[in-house]
């Protein structure tokens, strides 16, 4: 039985038109990511990792080529449809955590639920997820700037999971954490992968990349190595 890829890039090119000249960040990239894959994307600075993440996270669309998620061509979607896909199908975990500073830890986790259901969470899902990543109710009322880096990243993971997305996009999730906390975060991501999530991870650190079952190395906007 052949399975359709969850994410499919076919001959994707992303060119930025700058005053100093055109810059091709992704150059004819083709890639399939299957459901429940754990993919690490590696490469030096300027290799196109961030551009790749923006494409996979539907924050941007390819200049040429086709990007499909769950069988739907992203280029055919309207702005609102892409926004809803980001909200429902993708969970984002960033290096700088990117929590909403005016909201408490609990409210940060609850926020995507409110976006989806247009009402406050009464199911207890946000609290349960916070507890699952090791943030108790007492810490939940704190604003992001009152939490440590590790705690903020745990809150960010809970936020990414709250709408039960198929895909977790992690952009250097341990980059701002000490080694021990970084490994703790990676353990959480591994357990999520085991529970069926598709995890895509951008990292510089080969040790972190070892957690993945596939590694893609980018160089000058092209896939140099895929294992």
């Amino acid at each position: 039985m052949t399975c359709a890829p969850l994410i499919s890039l076919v001959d994707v090119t992303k060119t930025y038109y700058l005053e100093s000249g055109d810059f091709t960040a992704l150059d004819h990239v083709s890639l399939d990511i299957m459901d429940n894959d754990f993919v690490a994307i590696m490469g030096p600075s300027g290799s196109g990792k961030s551009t790749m993440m923006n494409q996979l996270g539907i924050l941007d669309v390819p200049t040429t080529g086709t990007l499909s998620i769950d069988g739907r061509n992203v280029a055919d979607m309207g702005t609102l449809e892409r926004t809803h896909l980001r909200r429902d199908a993708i969970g984002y975990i960033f290096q700088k955590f990117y929590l909403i500073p005016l909201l408490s830890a609990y409210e940060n986790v609850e926020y995507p639920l409110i976006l989806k259901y247009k009402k406050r969470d009464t199911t207890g899902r946000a609290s349960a997820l916070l507890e699952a990543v090791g943030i108790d109710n007492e810490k939940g009322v704190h604003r992001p700037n009152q939490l440590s880096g590790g705690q903020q990243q745990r809150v960010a993971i809970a936020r990414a999971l709250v709408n039960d997305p198929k895909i977790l996009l992690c952009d250097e999730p341990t980059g701002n954490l000490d080694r021990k906390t970084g490994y703790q975060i990676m353990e959480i991501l591994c357990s999520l992968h085991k529970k069926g999530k598709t995890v895509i991870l951008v990292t510089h650190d080969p040790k972190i990349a070892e957690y993945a079952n596939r590694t893609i190395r980018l160089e000058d906007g092209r896939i140099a190595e895929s294992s």
Partner: protein
Amino acid sequence: MIGDIFFDLSVRSVRLNFLRSILASIGIVIGVVAISTMGMLGTNMQLQVKDQLSSSANTIVITADAIRMGPPGFSSSSASTEAGITKAQLSKIRSVVGANGTVISIYSSNTEFTSGSVPARGMIYGMDPSDVTEFLKVGNGTNIASINEALAGYTLAESLGIKVGDKIKISSASSGPPGNSSSASRATVRIVGIIDTRGTVADSVSSDNGIVVSREWYTAQYGGKDSYDQVNVIVDDTDKIYTIEDAIDARINTDEKSPAVRISDASSQLDTISSTLETLTMFILAIGGISLLVAAVSIFNVMMMSVNERVQEIGILLSIGTESGEVRKMFVYEALILGILGAGIGGVMSLVIGYSVVSAMMGTTKFFFLPESLIYIPEGMLIGMVVCVISGLYPAWHASNMDPIDALRSE
């Protein structure tokens, strides 16, 4: 709105920059106070005039038409005869009015009074003493009973210090009545009563700054016995006022090109005064509006600052699935909160400042709490809030149209 996460975010943003928000709202406060106070002042002035005129709302004032005062070819003697309402015209008016009202014929002139050695100018009215009580109230003293007695207006009595029993000299020189040989002649009358103050009235009898004498005394001093300066008709039923006016007009003004008499009432005078006061009020309101324009610029500036300080936050919101309309809503809420803040404080201050201004400028707050006056407070508040929201529209649009990738990258 309450319980909406975007409203909560807006409230928290305002709270985080509370001093800046309050300073921006002060512009709105000033604008709301300016509009409300000026509006209330204008309305209170209109209401006062209306109230004063309404006391004579049942009165028709008939005067000789100005054109007849001295057209080319008229001799001075004929002009003098034609200058007022003739006896024939008066009897026509009486027959038209019949039992529907009271007809009062009045002589009047502008003259100089002297009480002791203090001179003053004012109006002197000659009328039948029995007509006096039809529309004037003698508050202190009694009505005229003999030819040498007179009533003084309240303001005149106050300014000259006239009391009941005092004698005042009246000059008859200014009007130059026929048969008065000495230009410096002074006739003396004894004040027997003080007429209550009437303020602005529509019956053309400004008794406050004048005196009332019997018509025998008046015609003896000023002549013109057969020519009344004005005839007032006090109508029993105000609803019939226009019917009676039309009937008088049809009976006396037979020549349409050159009407013999001019017929007016309180409503026509009220229209003129109201329209003048309304123009004045609009002008003052426009000045108040300028302060709101300045406030709008200040709110726009603060909103742009808020958007520019929160670019990364906007990037986070957009990247995790917030619709651009929701981001727009968040900033419009923020502008609305500034508006509510400014309008709320402005509303309370308008009540206090408006009351003080009306009290100081008009000397009375009798009409201040009437709905027509107080409505300017919610109106001013609403305008303040609308101005705030409009000022926040562009910053909100700017925020919602940011590219999430660029916004996330900003520090």
